[in-house]
């Protein structure tokens, strides 16, 4: 048996490595995708293009605007002179935020009354708008606090000295600078691994069927068990190799910290690979042509990535969809990846994920192998 399996493995590896283009497919796209994701996928909000319409021209109004330009969040690009320009600039997408200070702003402040600050936000990108509005409120709050303190300092300094206050000290753990890259890079390892392994496994079998070589293999003494092992083992190894390669790019190029243990990560990846191989094999049993296999794989992969928590929080999905995510192996791998990379946690906290992947992997692989053997007969 070992000898036949070895022959089968040699054939599979030969097939993968002989085709220069296919070889490129194994190495090129993952690296390119990793680079694009690392650079482009970001929810960070910095330097939001901002326009200012200051109709008050006072010390106070300039002071307030200066606070906006002093932060990295707003990039005060344009000083406007009339209100029509705001509409024009936002319509054209030249600025995302416009601040408008009405005449009499300083006068109201000096009288101790409430002065309005009008903020117009382009809500097309709801996430940018939401976070930018949060920053606007923080800056305005800071300005108001300082103004109030100044006024009190002048009128009744003895009171100010005894004024109580509550302050927030926020500590973002695991990712102190709130970098999106740290969130996405470990996730990319998982989603790329899923795409590669499912597609390669499904194609490897379907190609034989399409070209007609499957029948030739059937007449050799190879047993179904050996055939299945021969078709999955190479991709298991290639998957691990790819994961290592992308992982190195993440750590060496993007400087994403790796805080956990390599062994835990390897265990997680292997358990996940069982699931991915099972899915790939399953797709191969229901597809007659490569195009069908590709289409089916795509139909599976898209939702699997969307529902995995890769880029969109599971907690804000509708309840029914949240239940569905429990069937998604990638969901668990992402928890393991982020846990190992960023949190540095070990098996004591990650065992539920490992167990879930082991169960899913066994079930998927089991069903696929049964179906597969039937399709060979």
């Amino acid at each position, binding site marked *: 048996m070992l000898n036949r399996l070895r022959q089968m493995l040699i054939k599979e590896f030969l097939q993968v490595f002989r085709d220069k*283009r296919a070889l490129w*497919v194994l190495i090129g*796209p993952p690296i390119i*995708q990793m680079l694009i*994701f690392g*650079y*482009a*996928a*970001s*929810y960070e909000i910095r330097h939001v*293009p901002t326009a200012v319409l200051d109709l008050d021209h006072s010390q106070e109004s300039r002071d307030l605007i200066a606070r906006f330009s002093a932060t990295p969040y707003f990039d005060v690009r344009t000083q406007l002179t009339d209100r029509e320009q705001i509409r024009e600039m936002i*319509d054209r997408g030249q600025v995302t935020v416009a601040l408008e200070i009405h005449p009499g702003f300083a006068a109201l*402040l000096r009288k101790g009354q*409430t002065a*309005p600050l*009008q*903020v*117009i936000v*382009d*809500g*097309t*990108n*709801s*996430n*940018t708008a939401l976070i930018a509005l*949060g920053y606007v*409120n923080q800056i305005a*709050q800071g300005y108001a606090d300082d103004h109030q303190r100044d*006024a009190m300092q002048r009128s*009744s300094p003895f009171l100010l000295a005894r*004024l*109580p206050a*509550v302050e*927030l*000290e926020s*500590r973002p*753990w*695991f*990712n102190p600078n*709130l970098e*999106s890259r740290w*969130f996405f890079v470990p996730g990319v390892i998982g989603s790329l691994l899923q795409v590669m392994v499912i*597609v390669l496994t499904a*194609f490897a079998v379907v190609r034989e069927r399409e070209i007609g070589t499957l029948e030739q293999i059937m007449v050799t003494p190879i047993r179904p068990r050996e055939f299945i092992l021969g078709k999955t083992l190479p991709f298991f190894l290639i998957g691990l190799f790819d994961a290592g390669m992308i992982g190195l790019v993440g750590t060496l190029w993007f400087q994403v910290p790796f805080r956990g243990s390599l062994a835990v990560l390897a265990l997680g990846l292997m358990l996940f690979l069982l699931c991915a191989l099972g899915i790939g094999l399953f797709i191969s049993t229901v597809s007659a042509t490569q*195009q*069908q296999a*590709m*289409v*089916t794989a795509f139909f599976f992969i*898209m939702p699997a990535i*969307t*529902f995995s928590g890769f*880029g*969109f*929080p599971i*907690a804000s*999905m509708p309840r029914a*969809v949240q239940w569905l995510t429990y069937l998604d192996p990638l969901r668990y791998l992402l928890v393991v990846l982020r846990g190992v990379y960023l*949190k540095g*946690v070990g098996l004591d906290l990650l065992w539920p994920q490992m167990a879930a992947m082991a169960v899913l992997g066994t079930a998927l692989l089991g069903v696929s192998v049964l179906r597969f053997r039937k399709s060979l007969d």
Partner: protein
Amino acid sequence: MSWRRLMAVARKELIQIWRDSRSLGIVLVMPLAMMLLFGYGVNLDMKHIPICVFDREGSQKSQDLLKRFQSSDYFEVVRAVDSYPALVKAIDSGQARMGVVVPHDFSERLRTGETATVQAIVDATDDNTANLAIGYTQAVVSDFSQRVQLDWLRQQGRPEPNPPLAVDARTWFNEDLESKAFIVPGVLALVMSVIGAFLTSLTIAREWERGSMEQLISTPVTPLEIMLGKLAPYFVIGLLNTAVCAVIAIWWFEVPFRGSVAALFVSSALFMVVVMALGFFISVIGRSQLAASQIALTATFLPAFLLSGFLFSIDQMPAVIRAITHVVPARYFVTILKDVFLKGSGLSMLEGELLALALFAVALTLLATRSFKKKL
């Protein structure tokens, strides 16, 4: 060029799509599936963020503050812990995304007129949720602080001062700041990328791989006729899909549609030509179906997803990547889609983007025709 031969190729292709149930499935079901997937699955405005609280004082004042977290829509207090290690564990295991720690001398400090510091320990693995959580927490805490100060001033017999500043924020185009309205229009670009590039790239590669290309070459059909004939069915299907997607977006997801149907139609047709020409070119150079489909995904779907402003704003990308986005056709189409749906832009306001798409269409069509030679 003969119209009859062209139609014959188109008919053959159509029959091939029709007979292959799965290709038919992808063109019929996929638009629907993608719309539902992104409409329901992608929601970035996090509400009910799970948090745990650690009240080290347990006084009236500290409970007052923590009640504000409980009553907020943005947070859901899943646990109250009584030790620091328990808080660490809740965050490490992902049970809670944030831990709020009230210091043991909270009310004491407020009584003596000092500043009490409340700690928010945030799991920043997901930076976007962390960012939102910190913003919401900041708002809760400064509101509370203000309340404390006003109460104190009143006790001192002082008049309540007016708040100096009132922020009057108005959100345009997407008034309720819904992720849905931001995401769903862009899905049209994704659907068309898949139909256009992905499926077409497989069609030519399939003929090469199966050897039926030789049979085609031995017929009097010219390369141009093969190309147009093979692409025509996908063009029609792509536009029909756009219409279906637009209908789902408007009636099912209730995304506002404020612009003109003409602008949507013209830009969709242009974009369809762009992705089809690209898909065709890829299938010619890729030869094998595996290579062609991989390249097609990497060259069209991925940029449409990542580099088009569909989800991640282009403003925020590094300069090099921003420069690259200019050669991503989907970038212009996504801008058009969002403008047509939300801003109500007409053809005249979108000149720049339409021109860019037209240029891509011409250039890629030329490239595709050039590369496709009828020889072995």
